[in-house]
């Protein structure tokens, strides 16, 4: 036998044994010949077209065996069921197809022949493989049952050959048919034959296939006598329109039709999961985390991708490859995909952001600007993209609540999140109703009794509150009351997280709601829970005129710049890109007097304020002081950001349009470069803890507040309460800032919220009648705990001052939380602080690093995070003249990330 044939045989043998592609090295080992020679033979065979080459490292080969290959099926795991569940969970649009697939496989006795329809690249082959695995899993076919794939387009110019492939040939059937040859149908006996591009099968071939489908038997070409009976489930696939006459015959003969959706018909959430899947696949290949900046992800989410999932996958692969090259060639610290790594047509996706901004924002809520993908990390549970539309909204809230609770978020935060949801849901709920629900339709769903009581309730509300409600409220209320009566009867709980807030904010409506509940209870003999009143109140607050069009109030954005058109052109760009006329500009020609400008600005601020404040973006000079002056004069909260760039304006405006709070928006910029300086400054200070009580109405109230707090809270030597009586807001803010220099201001208790960011505010009213004292107590308790710990550390640490280091570490951790966009669980914090303080003490005393097991693997996964943490520790390293090594950083990083609330 020639060498080259030996190589071919060896390849066949190894392939059968391992059921995968084989490398030249493996063959050389088996045959004991030089690897280079084997390579040469293999390449020769490849050129001859006898074998396939699989690019990669190492290059692998497999035998072609006349184009048909028994496909490499990924080894079966017992988690197929769970992975199918995961697929359906992530790919809502596949729910029906997967149900159909299950039915097709399980239908007795041996499943239904199936036709899969769908555009190029939607994953028809993959789906067929999935069905095969499902069949094995459900023991419909043997574990070793064959799955054979054949593409009918492969020999499209020779229909005879196609048929020969599928049905086999008897010796002498045609010239060149010199021996009997089995067809794929025979070889697939007991298993599944997947025929791709079935529309390319000739009419004659189709007839033969139908004969098999009808009778379970077929005749090879040239065979006239005995028909062969086999048990094969046919799965066919095509990209053709099922309405075409060609497919008509198929759809009549093949009982199960499964249509796979095109990528553009999938929701963004589904597409996000696909992207995640593909990036993680690359991450696995590279063995490192892949970081992706948010804009690139948005482009991937939105670009036009006509060849569907297949194309999405290869575009992502290309981007990953580019990023990888950059990482290698430019010696970057980690692999980061940014816009420039994307193919041109993908970049264009970003242009569609305006159409889909809301959905996209929803998807990226709570995610940072750079996202990490690692094959070892599982997808987070999807709590963001949830759709409330078709659900009973109590259930939706409860479900959300549970998810949030499970992920360890504390009650306070849950309430905030849920509250936002309720509001937006409520708007949608009423907004969607519109006029298309007519009274007859309502009465089909809702009992007449309920309708009657709704009329009575609305009458009462109109009389009491002196306002008119339109029909929409009537319908909405009817549906709502119907819903909650059902719910109460079933004994399901009703929960409103912000009951108290609603009571305070809408006292009149709340009273009406209480009356309404009385009426309902009497009529239906139920006991409506208190929380329900909160929901009802919202109905009465709804101003019918506001429902349509009018949005929730937003923070105003005003841009003032020197120059004739600087501000206006910046604002134009911003508003165009945001897709909302939100930002407003004032140009300040150099000839203009600041005072005149001030008056204009003030007027504009008054006009823009919707009760949530106005963000003032300016370039320089006197403009930077306008904000405080206007605040003082008008009482409108104005926050000023200077040295504004277009990018910054767009970001601020986007946040405002999203309805973010002014403090939040302002805070996100204030920290842009001053934070580290801030830490350095704060590291040098020695703090005393204080609580400030304040009033603006005159002498005395702040003293009284101080008295109340001292009287009712346990005494503490560590915390001082300082009353401030200041009539002027600006002065107050500046004196707070003075206090901040040498003190740690734990809280401000006041009759009015003065909006000092990063100091908790507790209203005087809450102190007297509400939960305020409890809140204050919590704040103090936490602080006292830290003081106690500091004292204990002082005894136990040898090299550093425990009381000081604890504050420094706390500040550092806060910084890290910001940089990594994480939120460390309160309960874990003390442990982490302690770990770090002992670490600093050890290093300072000349101790050695503790080794971190598998440091390299950990770095592959979290290198970016480690670098950021390292940066945050710089002030501490400098102060104590220590260096925190990679092993120790890895420990710290792990603690932080594992204790993240979202993890």
């Amino acid at each position: 036998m020639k060498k080259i044939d030996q190589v071919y045989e060896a390849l066949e043998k190894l392939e059968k044994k391992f059921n995968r592609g084989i490398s030249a090295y493996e063959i050389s080992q088996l045959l004991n010949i030089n690897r280079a020679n084997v390579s040469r033979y293999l390449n020769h065979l490849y050129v001859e077209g006898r074998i396939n080459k699989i690019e990669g490292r190492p290059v692998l080969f497999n035998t072609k065996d006349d184009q048909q290959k028994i496909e490499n099926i990924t080894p079966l795991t017992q988690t197929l069921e769970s992975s199918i569940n995961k697929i359906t969970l992530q790919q809502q649009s596949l729910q029906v197809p997967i149900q159909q697939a299950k039915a097709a496989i399980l239908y007795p006795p041996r499943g239904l022949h199936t036709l899969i329809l769908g555009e190029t690249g939607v994953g028809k082959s993959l789906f067929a493989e999935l069905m095969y695995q499902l069949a094995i899993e459900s023991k419909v076919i043997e574990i070793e049952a064959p799955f054979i794939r054949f593409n009918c387009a492969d020999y499209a110019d020779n229909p005879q050959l196609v048929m020969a492939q599928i049905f086999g040939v008897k010796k002498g059937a045609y010239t060149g048919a010199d021996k009997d040859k089995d067809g794929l149908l025979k070889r697939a006996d007991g298993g599944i034959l997947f025929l791709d591009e079935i529309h390319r099968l000739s009419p004659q071939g189709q007839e033969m296939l139908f004969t098999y489908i009808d009778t379970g038997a077929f005749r090879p070409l040239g065979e006239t006598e005995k028909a062969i009976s086999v048990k094969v489930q046919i799965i066919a696939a095509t990209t053709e329109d099922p309405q075409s006459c060609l497919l008509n015959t198929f759809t009549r003969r093949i009982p199960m039709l499964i249509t796979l959706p095109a990528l553009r018909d999938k929701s963004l959430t589904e597409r996000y999961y696909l992207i995640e899947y593909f990036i993680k696949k690359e991450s696995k290949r590279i063995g490192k985390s892949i970081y992706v900046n948010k804009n690139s992800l948005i482009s991937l989410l939105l670009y036009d991708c006509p060849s569907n999932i297949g194309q999405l996958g290869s575009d992502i692969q290309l981007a990953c490859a580019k990023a990888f090259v950059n990482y290698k060639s430019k010696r970057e610290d980690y692999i980061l995909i940014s816009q420039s790594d994307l193919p041109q047509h993908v970049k264009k996706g970003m242009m569609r952001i305006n159409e889909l901004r809301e959905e996209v924002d929803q998807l990226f809520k709570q995610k940072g600007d750079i996202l990490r993908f690692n094959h070892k990390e599982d997808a987070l549970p999807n709590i963001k993209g949830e759709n409330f539309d078709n659900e009973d909204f109590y259930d939706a809230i409860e479900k959300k609540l549970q998810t949030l609770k499970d992920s360890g978020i504390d009650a306070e935060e849950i309430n905030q999140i849920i509250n936002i949801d309720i509001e937006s849901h409520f708007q949608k709920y009423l907004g969607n109703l519109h006029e298309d629900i007519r009274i007859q339709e309502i009465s089909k769903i809702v009992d007449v009794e309920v309708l009657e009581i709704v009329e009575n309730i609305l009458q009462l509300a109109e009389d009491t509150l002196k306002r008119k409600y339109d029909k929409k409220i009537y319908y909405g209320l009817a549906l709502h009351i119907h819903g909650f009566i059902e719910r109460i009867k079933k004994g399901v709980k009703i929960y409103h997280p912000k009951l108290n807030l609603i009571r305070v904010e809408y006292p009149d409506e709340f009273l009406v709601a209480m009356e309404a509940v009385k009426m309902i209870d009497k009529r239906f003999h139920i006991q409506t829970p208190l929380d329900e009143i909160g929901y009802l109140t919202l109905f009465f607050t709804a101003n019918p005129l506001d429902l349509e069009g009018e949005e929730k109030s937003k923070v105003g954005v005003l841009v003032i710049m020197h120059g004739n058109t600087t501000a206006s052109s910046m604002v134009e760009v911003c508003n165009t890109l945001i897709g909302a006329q939100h930002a407003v500009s004032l140009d300040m020609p150099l000839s203009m007097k600041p005072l005149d400008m001030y008056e204009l600005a003030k007027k504009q601020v008054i006009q823009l304020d919707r009760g949530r404040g106005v963000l003032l973006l300016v370039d320089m000079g006197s403009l930077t002081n306008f904000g405080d002056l206007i605040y003082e004069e008008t009482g409108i909260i104005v926050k000023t950001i200077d040295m504004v760039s277009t990018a910054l304006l767009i970001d601020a405006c986007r946040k405002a349009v999203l309805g973010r709070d002014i403090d939040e928006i302002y805070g996100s910029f204030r920290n842009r470069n001053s934070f580290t300086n801030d830490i350095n400054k704060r590291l040098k200070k020695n703090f005393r803890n204080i609580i400030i009580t304040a009033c603006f109405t005159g002498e005395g109230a702040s003293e009284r507040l101080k008295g109340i707090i001292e009287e009712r809270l346990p005494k503490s030597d560590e915390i001082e309460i300082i009353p401030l009586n200041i009539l002027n807001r600006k002065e107050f803010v500046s004196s707070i800032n003075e206090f901040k220099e040498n003190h740690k201001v734990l809280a401000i208790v006041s009759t009015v919220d003065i909006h000092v960011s990063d100091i908790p505010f507790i209203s005087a009213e809450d102190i007297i009648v509400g939960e305020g004292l409890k809140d204050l107590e919590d704040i103090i308790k936490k602080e006292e705990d830290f003081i106690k710990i500091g004292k204990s550390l002082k005894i136990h640490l040898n090299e550093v001052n425990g009381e000081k280091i604890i504050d420094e570490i706390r500040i550092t951790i806060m910084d890290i939380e910001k940089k990594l966009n994480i939120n460390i669980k309160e309960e874990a914090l003390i442990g982490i602080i302690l770990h770090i303080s002992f670490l600093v003490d050890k290093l300072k005393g000349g101790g050695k690093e503790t080794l971190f097991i598998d440091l390299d693997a950990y770095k592959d996964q979290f290198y970016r995070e480690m670098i950021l943490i390292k940066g945050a520790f710089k002030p501490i390293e400098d102060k104590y003249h220590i260096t925190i090594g990679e092993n120790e950083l890895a420990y710290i990083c792990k603690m932080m990330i594992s204790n993240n609330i979202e993890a």
Partner: protein
Amino acid sequence: MKKIMLVCSAGMSTSLLVTKMNNAAVKKGISAEIFAVSETDAKKHFDNIDVVLLGPQVRYLLNKIEKLLAEKKIPVAVIESINYGTMNGEAVLDQALRLLE
């Protein structure tokens, strides 16, 4: 003789706590073997302990270790933050003993 295992991430702060717990045990006249291990070494000792306490910074291990030890009925808990923070050996020892009751 009660065997108490403390787990923390790198075994840095816990060793001091162990000393303090031992002192507390001597004072109380309780015979106990108390030792600290790092996260990675914890598993090696599963066959030879009565109770496991986790440092607050590795509280994320709680579920995992609970599951692993459920069959052996060995109790697992996270050390109270404040007791950990103040290195209060006595209180932590009490917590361990309560778990063993």
